[in-house]
């Protein structure tokens, strides 16, 4: 028996950030990733592909997100180099199966605890989508220093998130 539309919506919602992340790893554009998620959600609801299991739906959503994102990249006429599709598949296969809700909550808590300058650099990079060289100029830092700070922030947030999930 196929999943009801209510279940499809609930399932996609519960994995929204991960699915959008699959697209964003290719597009590196937040709005494009969000549009891709919307598009595949509508496709799923339209019922062209019947889903019997939630895991099947999630798997389909990740694959579709990657394909749509690759099409988006191709429409940019080669302006951006992109990872091989096989590598992207490999990266996506290892998403943990646990619901993303608790991880999101933990991550948001960690973000709230960041010093203002650390949060500013993440906002500049990911909310405003400013390239790192521009952030470097804005903050009066070298480009490598910006890379290092963002890299450290990602690792610190990962550690903080894991700690919060474990307690």
């Amino acid at each position, binding site marked *: 028996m196929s999943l009801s*539309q*209510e279940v*499809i*919506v*609930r399932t996609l*919602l519960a994995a929204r*950030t991960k699915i*959008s*992340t699959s697209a*964003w*790893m290719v*597009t*590196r*554009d*937040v*709005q*494009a*990733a969000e549009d891709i998620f*919307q*598009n595949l*959600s*509508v*496709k799923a*609801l*339209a*019922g062209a592909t019947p889903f019997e299991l939630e895991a099947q739906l999630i798997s389909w959503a990740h694959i579709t997100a990657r394909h749509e994102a690759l099409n988006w990249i191709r429409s*940019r006429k080669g302006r951006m*180099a*992109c*990872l*091989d599709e*096989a*590598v992207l598949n*490999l*990266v996506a296969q*290892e*998403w943990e199966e646990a619901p993303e809700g608790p*991880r*999101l909550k933990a*991550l*948001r808590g960690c*973000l709230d605890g960041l010093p203002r300058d650390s949060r500013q650099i*993440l*906002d500049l*990079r*990911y*909310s405003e*989508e*400013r*390239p*790192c*060289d*521009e952030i470097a100029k804005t903050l009066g830092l070298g480009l490598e220093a910006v*890379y290092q700070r*963002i*890299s450290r922030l*990602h*690792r610190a*947030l*990962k550690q903080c998130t894991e700690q919060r999930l474990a307690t």
Partner: protein
Amino acid sequence: MSDALILRYLDGTATPEDVASLNELLKKDADARALLRTAAFQALTVADLRRVQVPRRDETARWNKWPLAAAAAVLLVVAAGVIWLTRPKAELLTVVRSTGAVTWNGSTLTVEGANSAAELRLIDGSTLMLAGDSEAAFSGTRGTEISLRRGSITVEAAPQPRTQPMVLRTPTAEAEVVGTCFTISAQTGQTMVTVGSGKVRLRRLVDGASADVAEGRMAVASLDATTPLESRKIPPLVSNWTQTFDAAPPAIWQGQWVPADAAGPGRLKNVLDVSYRKPDGTVVPAYVVSARNPSAMTTIRPDSVLRVKWRVGAPPVGALLLLSVQHSDGRFAGNFQTLLKPEEQAADEKGWRTFSAPVSSLEGVYPAGAKLPTVGRVLLFFMAVYTPKGELEVAEVTFE
């Protein structure tokens, strides 16, 4: 090593060699794959949080076109479930202000009439000015994929994401923008770009040739692929400028040319144009003589004197005189106007009057209270009467 590669990849600055190295690394290294997933997940979470915390004013639900059509088919069934999908997203652009006949249909902005103009702001903070008879369509997730179908547009582009820069297309060329102030105009068979600050990459569509157009330079892309596409220095504009009409004027002029005869010297007679549209869409006409040059006609200072030899029919009616001016770096400065009153200017035996006054005597009307720059560039000279029997004629325009 893996951190730097991953961040360069996510930043869009990785070279093909970097991406090849990253591919190899990710195939072998589960930690690197985990780091990529983690960084990407965190990035989207940060972006999501910011959207929730800072909702945009005037947000309305926006869907891409085909999902909307598909959604319509299933919406009745799953209405409750998909409400979240229509969460607010920013409109492509905001019309900050406009004058004259300006219409926006959700993706295309149309500006009708020589003295009509609209100032727009895109989601990323870039501002654009469409002026004169111009039409532009906006697409892409940020509205930064712009098709200029006709007319001219002046852009003050905010710094653009390297991975998705603003792109302006015309029928003959494509301009890619990083962060700059420039004017692009689409004329029949050719596209002209003048750059006030920053840099624009212009690509000629007929053969794919491209040229970087730097600050203070201009380039023209036409359908003629036999000539090289090159940028050149913007010619300095003279500050003493005169246009008479004893010979047919250049194409920048709007009006019906009348050669010299017993009634007067060579002149331009008014033609019908759109002045503005009423809220119900009704067009209000104007009878116009004008000249628009996207790369500007002349430089002016506030004490520059404007002299116009003009005539109207009987009984004489007042005429609107308007200048559209930009700063020397290409930013729009404003529209400045005055009403020429026949009773204040004596006519000669053939009915010709001469207006002569410093340009500082014109009132800044768009935006309201606009001030003339210390050094400005005149983009538009415009005169109009608003009655069919006004019979406006212009025989000479001089800035000195």
